């Protein structure tokens, strides 16, 4: 954030200050409600004045999000939110810009923009609501729907090979990659906070239940009675353990992860340890490839590394050029090159 912000005496904000006066139009019990609630909780803790937040979204159920936040907001067009947010951020680096998108919006129609937004590493915060379905258009399969998924547009099952948002993000050189679950309130709050504090682009996938068109797609990751065996909470510098009694762990066998029982001759030191700061994204990628039901799906911060930040570099180049050439002089510009005078 700019030094200007730090100097100011900030008004004390609460979640309420971030609620707009608009009636929320998501279906009752939609996972979006929880994400909205956690966001409203996190923002007042950041020490940033409310007017400096901008929420940019594309098209889809999740993209209604900005209407419900009492910040600056731009509900834009399908897939283009990363590009619109890039325009906001490059031109006004002092703003904290969040991108709200969905699996169809970000990975299908907007796949190209997402990749380039990630590799440029602007200070954007991206929340991808993954419900593995097109909800707003009433139930077609999305780029994250599993093979075999029966929808209105795949009456005999999808034959599209799905992709993992996190694999995509890591492959696109994202410097912050994380995952959480809509109803896992504490964890989601933690992840959103970490994303907000990351200096470059932060990419967060949230498993989100569409209770109308794809209900319980993530039951394995959200149901308190079973999730311990199906998800794994990542902690920096700690071994990868999971399970009801935290007796199971992930060990590397050559290049491949395998599930092992801790105890029977295997102790924690034999397990794979998480390193979110690893310069190379190999570990983060390996973790992003661990899919249910073969593996527990990791939750938390997969990767957080420092890298040059695009919007700051733009400003630095301008400053350097002004220092080198002096501030632009229009009359000197107009009179540059070969000139001649007509009497």
């Amino acid at each position, binding site marked *: 954030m700019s030094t200007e912000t730090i100097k*100011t005496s900030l008004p004390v904000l609460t979640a309420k200050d971030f609620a707009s006066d608009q009636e929320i139009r998501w279906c009752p019990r939609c996972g979006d409600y929880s994400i909205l609630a956690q966001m409203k909780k996190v923002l007042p803790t950041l020490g940033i004045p409310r007017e400096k937040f901008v929420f940019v979204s594309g098209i889809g159920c999740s993209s209604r999000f900005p209407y419900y936040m009492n910040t*600056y907001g731009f509900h834009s*067009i399908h897939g283009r939110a990363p590009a619109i947010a*890039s325009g906001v951020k*490059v*031109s006004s680096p002092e703003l904290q810009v969040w991108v709200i998108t969905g699996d169809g919006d970000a990975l299908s129609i907007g796949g190209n923009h997402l990749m380039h937004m990630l590799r440029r590493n602007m200070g954007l915060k991206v929340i991808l609501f993954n419900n593995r379905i097109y909800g707003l258009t009433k139930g077609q399969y999305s780029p994250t729907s599993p093979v075999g998924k029966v929808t209105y547009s795949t009456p005999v099952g999808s034959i599209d090979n799905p992709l993992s948002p996190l694999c995509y993000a890591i492959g696109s050189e994202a410097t912050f990659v994380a995952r959480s679950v809509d109803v896992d309130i504490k964890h989601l709050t933690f992840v959103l906070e970490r994303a907000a504090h990351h200096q470059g682009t932060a990419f967060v996938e949230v498993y989100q239940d569409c209770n109308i068109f794809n209900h319980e797609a993530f039951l394995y990751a959200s149901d308190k009675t079973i999730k311990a065996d199906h998800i794994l909470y990542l902690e920096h510098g700690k071994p990868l353990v999971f399970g009801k009694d935290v007796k199971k762990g992930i060990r590397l066998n050559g290049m491949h992860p395998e599930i092992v029982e801790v105890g029977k001759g295997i102790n924690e030191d034999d397990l794979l340890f998480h390193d979110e700061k690893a310069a190379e994204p190999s570990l983060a990628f390996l973790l992003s490839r661990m899919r249910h039901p073969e593996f527990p799906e990791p939750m938390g911060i997969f990767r957080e590394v420092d890298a040059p930040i695009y919007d700051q570099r733009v400003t630095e180049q301008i400053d350097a050029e002004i220092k080198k050439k002096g*501030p632009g002089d229009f009359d000197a510009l107009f009179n540059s090159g070969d000139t001649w005078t*007509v009497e």
Partner: protein
Amino acid sequence: MSSTEALAAQPQPDKKLEQVDSVVIRFCGDSGDGMQLVGTQFTNVSAAFGNDVSTLPDFPAEIRAPVGTLAGVSGFQLHFSSHDIFTPGDEVDTLVAMNPAALKTNVGDLRRGGTLIVNEDEFDKGNLIKAGYATNPLDSEEIISKYTLHRVQMTRLNRDAVAGLGLSQKEVDRSRNIFALGLVYWLYDRDAKPTEHFLQDKFKKKPEVLEANLRALRAGSNYGFSTEAFTTHYAVPRAKLAPGKYRKIAGNEATAWGLVTAAKLAGKTLFYAGYPITPASDILHQLSSMKNFGVKTFQAEDEIAAMAAVCGAAFAGKIAVTASSGPGICLKGEAMGLGFMTELPMIIVDVQRGGPSTGLPTKTEQSDLLLAMFGRNGDSPLPILAASGPGDCFTLVQEAVRIAVEFMTPVIFLTDGYIANGAEPWRIPNFADLQPIHVTHPHGKATPGHFETEDNGQATNANGSGNGEGEPEFLPYKRNEKMARPWAIPGTPGLEHRIGGLEKADITGNVDYSPHNHHKMVMNRCNKVAGIANHIPLQEIEGPASGKLLVLSWGGTFGAVRTAVENCIAQGKSVAHAHLRYMNPFPRNLGDIVKNYEKVLVPELNTGQLRLLIRAKFLVDAQGFNKIQGKPFLVHEVVRKIDETLES
């Protein structure tokens, strides 16, 4: 010492110096032959001398087509004159052809009796075959009888002149174009000094190459001076332009400078997002080199992203601009619609090229007018301005910015490949004399510790409401007298609001699908754009205010059409010319103007796009004159059409 000075010291052979009024020269050769460079140099020395100049570069679409082929021919035409000229000329007086392919593709434009200078050394069997000549055309009766042919062994002569510098043959031959330039400098009595300075600067790190080029320049000039083949050379006196200081400017350069100037005049940052595309890329290049003017450029991943980023930057309160050509404008259509719907100011430059689809990337056309008018879903009219020439790009793009910020709307700025790459003398303005552009942003709540809103020192609350304690909430769609909504920018405390592509309620801007509101909002947006007609100049006419024929043109055809109509008026014909720069909305007197003449002729480089609009809007039986060859109008073509129309 310049080549002409060098010659002055020598005894003069008996050579006549004849005065001529104006000359059209075309240099043509392989795309690797440096024809654009010599054309530009000739232009610069002629402009610096005080001639009026107009140029037409003609690039091949392929970067490097195989050497010697027809597809690889690159040309540069230049018209220089002792009087005011508006076009690069109809017919070529002097053609310099560096190889058979260049001769074949260009000789048709050389006037009967014109001067033809060829590099004879390149007319070997291989090159003749590549150009599709069965026999050497230089020996043909047709060429010999029709033109004054000069067969110059340029390659050999140049090698002799440059020998002994330790350069490879390839490097030596690279200066052939400069030899040709030197020869033509002699032929038209040009001062080579500016070119020598240019070469000294260009090759300051390569002294041998510099020496080779200087020698080539002198050798070409000496050849013209000493050979018996050239008996006469020509002088074109200075033109009587309006007093002032001049420089040469090309359209894309003028557009870029105009944009930076407009942002400064508005007291705001210029944000430019673009994606490389011919013939608009030069605008991106130019602006990217102007970082010390505070310009932020962003090369986006595609045309869509460039347009979307522009929407974001406009929301953030910047002078936001993108430029492209037809195929890119198609891709931008969706985000342009968003810009229209959210009523944010931004500029979309369309440097038109031959279409449809990929079409003719390096050739000119005026076929995007209807795309600009109608290329978005829903009722979404945008203001459209079209520059009439290279210099006009500077002036008119500032007007586009003014309209954008005053009316809170995207504005389309049309140029074309012809004026984008063509150059003309430009009277240098004083920055202090340019009109400021007024931008206002509503102020937010003055909460302690909050920073001030960016503005240009003239911010008022006139546009907004609800900015202090106890006042009503901010109303992002409450309009002013011009029907513009307030431009409240992120970072302003108390004005937090949401915009988007969904239909919104009048005044509050909340999402609203109700039938009457939609009707009202569509009309509001359309009426706002239509109302711009009350804030732009009336249409001017050259010639009688009524009569037999009105020639109505727009955009880059100005030069040819104005020259043609002036010729006809001089011959006593009842013709007038109206040249449109405001394409949407039209100037408010245009409907009356078109009804004051018995006939209306609309010359366009398309199938009749303006004509369609004129007929639809004013119910006049406008006739078209349409040329779709990737080339601008020639003056005599327009004159002939005017004569035909008057007689019919």
